């Protein structure tokens, strides 16, 4: 059985923990604690180490999903998780443009440590004020559309949508292996 480790990262409240909960076949290992920082504006609990879920992908492969904390004070966890990952998805809440900078910062951190395949998943596209993919790409620093990683839309609350995102990520990373 092959194991593929996928990391789900992104700013606070993007939907990382929800994403993993939606598709994991095991009870998710979560390390959410009561939030006491500015996270409280968005939600009550926040991830302090990582989320872990597992998903069987065909008969030969198991996917291990690791969700990171969003706050940069936990960047040592970003570092630990990305070093062992085979691919990752950056979740960005499309309706919170003030967080694009934090997403960009995470991206920079990951890029510095790892060249593994990645895609961008836009969440909260159902919410008022959501930006479109093109403008988010620019906000994240991808000025040239040809050099931009694949951008997909995902709703972490819907397992079918998350499953599609996971497939997109696995496929993208396999393409990466061929070239």
């Amino acid at each position, binding site marked *: 059985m092959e194991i593929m480790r996928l990391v789900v990262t992104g700013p606070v409240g993007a939907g990382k923990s929800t994403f993993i909960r939606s598709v994991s076949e095991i009870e998710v*290992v979560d*390390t959410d*604690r*009561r*939030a*006491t*920082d500015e*996270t409280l504006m968005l939600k009550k609990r*926040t991830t*302090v*180490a990582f989320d872990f879920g597992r998903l069987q992908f065909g008969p030969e492969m198991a996917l291990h999903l690791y969700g990171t*904390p969003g*706050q940069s*004070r*936990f960047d*040592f*966890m970003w570092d630990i998780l990305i070093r062992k990952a085979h691919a990752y998805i950056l979740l960005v809440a499309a309706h919170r443009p003030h967080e694009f900078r934090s997403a960009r910062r995470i991206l920079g951190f990951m890029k510095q440590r790892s060249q593994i395949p990645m895609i961008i998943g836009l969440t909260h596209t159902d919410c008022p004020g959501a930006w479109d993919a093109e403008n988010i790409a620019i906000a994240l620093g991808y000025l040239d559309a040809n050099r931009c990683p694949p951008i997909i839309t995902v709703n972490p609350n819907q397992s079918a949508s998350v499953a599609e995102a996971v497939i997109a990520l696995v496929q993208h990373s396999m393409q990466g292996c061929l070239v």
Partner: protein
Amino acid sequence: MAISTEKLSGILQNFVTSTNDVQGAAVVTPDGLPLATSLPGAMDEERVSAMSAAMLSLGERIGNELARGTIDRIYVEGNQGYGVLTSCGEDAVFLVLANQSAKQGLLMLEIKRALTELKLVLM
């Protein structure tokens, strides 16, 4: 109710200076923010706090998963010394750093004592 961080700092400073072989201590929130710290100069309190929270949460989770019951403390022993994490009520985590010559039993006793004091302020 506001926690008196001044009192917490006082207790920590006193603990660090008066306990043999203790090099630093911190009280942090379970989501990894510093409440009060008295740490060696080179250590960043924000980082230390986040790490403490991450480690305690994982330790508790492991305790749970491997049927070890409620976790009293997490213990890291390296050739340069010890790091001991103790849950300090629902709203705080207590981290103590000691050098390698610390006597474990004594250290635990001192930590227990400090915990009692801290809990009174945190209540």
